[in-house]
């Protein structure tokens, strides 16, 4: 029996857990969220990604019940939650500012929500101990928040929001203050918790890698709008706009005009002095329509000689090399001044690397390597 892939968003029968219907949020004149519609399904690990001030926290606060929507409806489990106060929602939020209770110890902070739920004392103690263990805070249980470090506070905030095992957990930049190793471990813990408890997570992050690692789907936001909502690989491989392509990961963008040359085949004229680029795309573009071609650096091959069978090949010289340990990024300048990034895996030692500064090189890529974007 083949395991079915978890993709409720592709199932028209599936009922979303969270449903934003044409939600708009204004603060006075300022529109923070602009007519957003979004479905998030039970047991998803949903990531909100976007630049600072784009409205991520506002989305979370509306879900938790701290902000009223100006227009539109938010449904939780099929019911409009417009009039449900925060303490009556089966939602817990981890605040971007942590919001730990300064007068309580770490232990009491974590126990706070459980006490309100009137859980038997033994269960409560066990649960708190479990959370302390999970976030490795056992040694700090009796300290007050001002007596621990920033990263430890973040873990207390995480433990406090996890303790009640809510149906929906909102995490506003939960791991930002942790070092890389602890962050990765906590990411896996979160995914583990999610798998064990079936909790639905909505997480805000600035870290793309984090979003890519943990999320079932990613939403890229810009100025109160959802630019694209898709699985991490689709966001990366087939961004639907220049904004998303540019925001997620590294990309080479070529601006030009399209010329259809066959079914789903286009030639992109971009610089007069250079040959047109060939690209495959199902996008319906007219002759002469302006467009962007986006190509990830790792899809660009770098060679000393022009490869015979290359569909797209341009010559240039290496102007910079960024050594990233396992990878190297070559910055290659074309005759017209454009700089293209090409990335290769460093399988050989540095001393035996093939290219260095000022070397003339050929860059090449296939017709399907890039994504054509309407501009």
């Amino acid at each position, binding site marked *: 029996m083949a395991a079915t892939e978890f993709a409720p968003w592709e199932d028209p029968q599936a009922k979303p857990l969270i449903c934003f219907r044409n939600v708009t949020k204004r603060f006075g004149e300022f529109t923070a969220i602009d007519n957003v519609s979004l479905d998030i399904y039970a047991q998803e690990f949903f990531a909100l990604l976007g630049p600072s001030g784009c409205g991520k926290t506002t989305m979370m606060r509306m879900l*938790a*019940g*701290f902000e009223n929507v100006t227009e539109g409806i938010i449904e939780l489990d099929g019911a409009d939650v417009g009039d449900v*106060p*925060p*303490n009556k929602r089966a*939602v*817990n*939020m981890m*605040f*971007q*500012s*942590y*919001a*730990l*209770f*300064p*007068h309580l110890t770490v232990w009491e902070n974590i126990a*706070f*929500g459980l006490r*309100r*739920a009137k859980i038997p004392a033994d269960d409560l103690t066990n649960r708190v101990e479990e959370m302390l263990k999970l976030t490795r805070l056992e040694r700090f249980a009796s300290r*007050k*928040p*001002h007596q621990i470090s*920033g990263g430890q*506070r973040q873990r207390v905030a995480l433990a*406090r*929001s996890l303790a*009640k095992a809510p149906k929906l957990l909102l995490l506003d930049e939960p791991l930002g203050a942790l070092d890389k190793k602890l962050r990765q471990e906590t990411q896996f813990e979160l995914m583990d918790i999610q798998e064990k408890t079936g909790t639905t997570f909505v997480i805000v992050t600035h870290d793309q890698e984090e979003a890519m690692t943990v999320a079932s789907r990613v939403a890229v936001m810009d100025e109160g709008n959802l630019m694209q909502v898709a699985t991490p690989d689709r966001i990366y491989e087939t961004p639907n706009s220049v904004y998303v392509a540019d925001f997620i990961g590294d990309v080479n963008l070529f601006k030009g005009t399209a010329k259809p040359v066959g079914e789903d085949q286009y030639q992109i004229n971009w610089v007069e002095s250079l040959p047109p680029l060939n690209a495959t795309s199902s996008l319906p573009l007219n002759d002469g329509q302006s467009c962007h071609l986006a190509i990830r650096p790792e899809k660009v091959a770098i060679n000393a000689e022009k490869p015979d069978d290359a569909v797209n090949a341009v010559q240039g010289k290496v102007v910079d090399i960024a050594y990233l340990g396992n990878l190297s990024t070559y910055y290659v300048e074309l005759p017209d001044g454009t700089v293209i990034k090409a990335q290769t895996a460093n399988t050989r030692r540095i001393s035996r690397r093939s290219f260095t500064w000022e070397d003339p090189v050929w860059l090449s890529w296939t017709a399907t390597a890039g994504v054509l974007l309407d501009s």
Partner: protein
Amino acid sequence: MMRLSWFNVVSLTFGFVFLYLPMIILVIYSFNKSKLVTVWAGFSTKWYGELLQNEAFLNAAWVTLKVAVISSTFATILGTMAAYVLVRSGRFFGRTLFSGMIYAPLVMPEVITGLSLLLLFIGIGMDRGVMTVVLAHTTFSMCYVSVVVSSRLFTFDQSLEEAALDLGCSPAQAFRLVTLPIIAPAVISGWLLAFTLSLDDLVIATFTTGPSATTLPIKIYSAVRLGVSPEINALSTLMIAVVTVGVILASLASKRNVAKMRQEEIAAVRAE
């Protein structure tokens, strides 16, 4: 430490003498053996002993204490509630008017406050006594409490209350379990302030009291009109002591704890 210039030394001395010389003389003469207030006849504590025999003074002291404790407690509850509404509710209809009305008694002449309360009590036919003085003191001291508490609430991070709501508290529980413990030092210093204000109020008490409830300041004032006695000096010295202790406690509660708890709060809520 920097050395003070002779000008600073002189002005400092002059200021302190101006402020405290009368009180120091009063305290010294309360230990005078002679019955004549102006003649020093040696050290004695006998006036303190006589004071304890004086039924009328003891009665007045008891009334004053009762009034001060009850009125400052009510004033603290009402003042804290008013401060909370003013700081938290954002804009609501009539907010400016409401806040203006809370702070108005701060600048209102006491005579006017006293007179208007007297008219009110007569108007509703209320017998004047301990009860009316308590009401009057509650009214005028709650605005002081409200000022102290609201200045603390302005710096209180609202996300703490949101976190409490998020974890299942009702708004009332969030206030009791999170807000109140954190602003407690300010509330306590508001109570102490109201307590000392009530303790030494003469004007408003005179207007609103009846024959059954003579407070200490009223008693002293009327006794002094018949001539200053060493007994009065002893009584006043005791009052100075009580008020001084109260003020010191209040400032300890507010300064040290408010600053400390504020820092702890800043630490617990990441500054963005």
